[in-house]
């Protein structure tokens, strides 16, 4: 199983995402924004960072970079695609997911271990969770406020396409505490928090069991592998 991770100019978490893919049991494949080649991967991760320095809008320039032609076409054919943080912003700018992400309502960059509730366990990236499961993964962003018009929000809520919701605090002013969403088909998922930073004991969030032992993010990647295996 090969999972591609796209590196854009300004990507930060591409190597972490590659490592998470490997820890989950798949082969990570480095993809380059300037290519028109997905190298035959089975799934794609758009990692976090500040592609193109967040110029114009977060993710806006990356969304029209060469490889996105192939990513959009693969996503529309059902390939699992995960957008993390800046990757989520790229997915909305590429119109693979609805809504938009704006500056945090409090105006500050935020970095914390964030509790989330998994609201949809039928997507390609969440099938390994149990319904309503509460997980903790890092969150770090300045522009993570999810917004959409009332009609879009009603549709997302009505169709169960809100995949993750913030617990304890709403860290950025997102409507309905929305942390992540999916497309109709459930193969494209975007979220602001970072599952790839919670995949390895010793480097994840603290848990009641031990410091830095949280590996809740690993299930994202094992879910994608399961989804691909069962096809």
């Amino acid at each position, binding site marked *: 199983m090969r999972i591609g991770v796209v590196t854009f100019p300004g990507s930060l978490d591409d190597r972490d995402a590659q490592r998470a893919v490997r820890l989950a049991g798949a082969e990570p494949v480095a993809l380059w924004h300037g290519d028109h080649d997905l190298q035959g991967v089975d799934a794609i991760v758009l990692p976090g960072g500040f592609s193109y320095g967040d110029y*114009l*809008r977060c993710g806006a320039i990356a969304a*029209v970079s060469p490889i996105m032609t192939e990513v959009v076409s693969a996503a529309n054919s059902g390939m699992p695609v995960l957008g993390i943080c800046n990757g989520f912003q790229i997915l909305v700018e590429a119109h693979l997911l*609805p809504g*938009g992400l*704006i500056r945090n309502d*409090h*105006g500050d960059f935020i970095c914390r271990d964030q509790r989330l509730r998994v609201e949809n366990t039928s997507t390609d990236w969440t099938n390994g969770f149990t319904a309503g499961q509460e997980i903790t993964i890092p969150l770090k962003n300045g522009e993570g406020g999810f917004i*959409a018009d009332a009609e879009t929000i009603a549709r997302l809520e009505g169709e169960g396409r809100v995949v993750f919701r913030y617990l304890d605090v709403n860290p950025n*002013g997102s409507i309905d505490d929305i942390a992540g969403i999916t497309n109709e088909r459930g193969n494209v998922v975007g979220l602001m928090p970072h599952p790839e930073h919670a995949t390895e004991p010793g480097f994840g969030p603290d848990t009641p069991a031990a410091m830095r032992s949280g590996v809740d993010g690993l299930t994202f990647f094992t879910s994608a592998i399961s989804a691909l295996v069962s096809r």
Partner: protein
Amino acid sequence: MPTIVVEVMPKAELLDPQGKAVAGALARLGKSEFTGVRIGKRFELTVDGPVDEALLAEVREIAEDLLANTVIEDVVSVHQADVETVAAGETH
């Protein structure tokens, strides 16, 4: 050089944290007559040839597709600027 100006503003119903921060700074400076500030963007697209209606139509399309994200922003103006106003950094 002919210049086409595109102006983009965050949608009115959305919180504009940057504008809010500037409004807060104005209040701290004692400029209490201003009740709000919103921050938008101005793009200046230069061309070699003449600006005609077809080109303006193309810019309107580019504005909606790339320069603005119409989920969170509105294109409020697409117009040709004359050299003087561009050089002076002023809008019409």
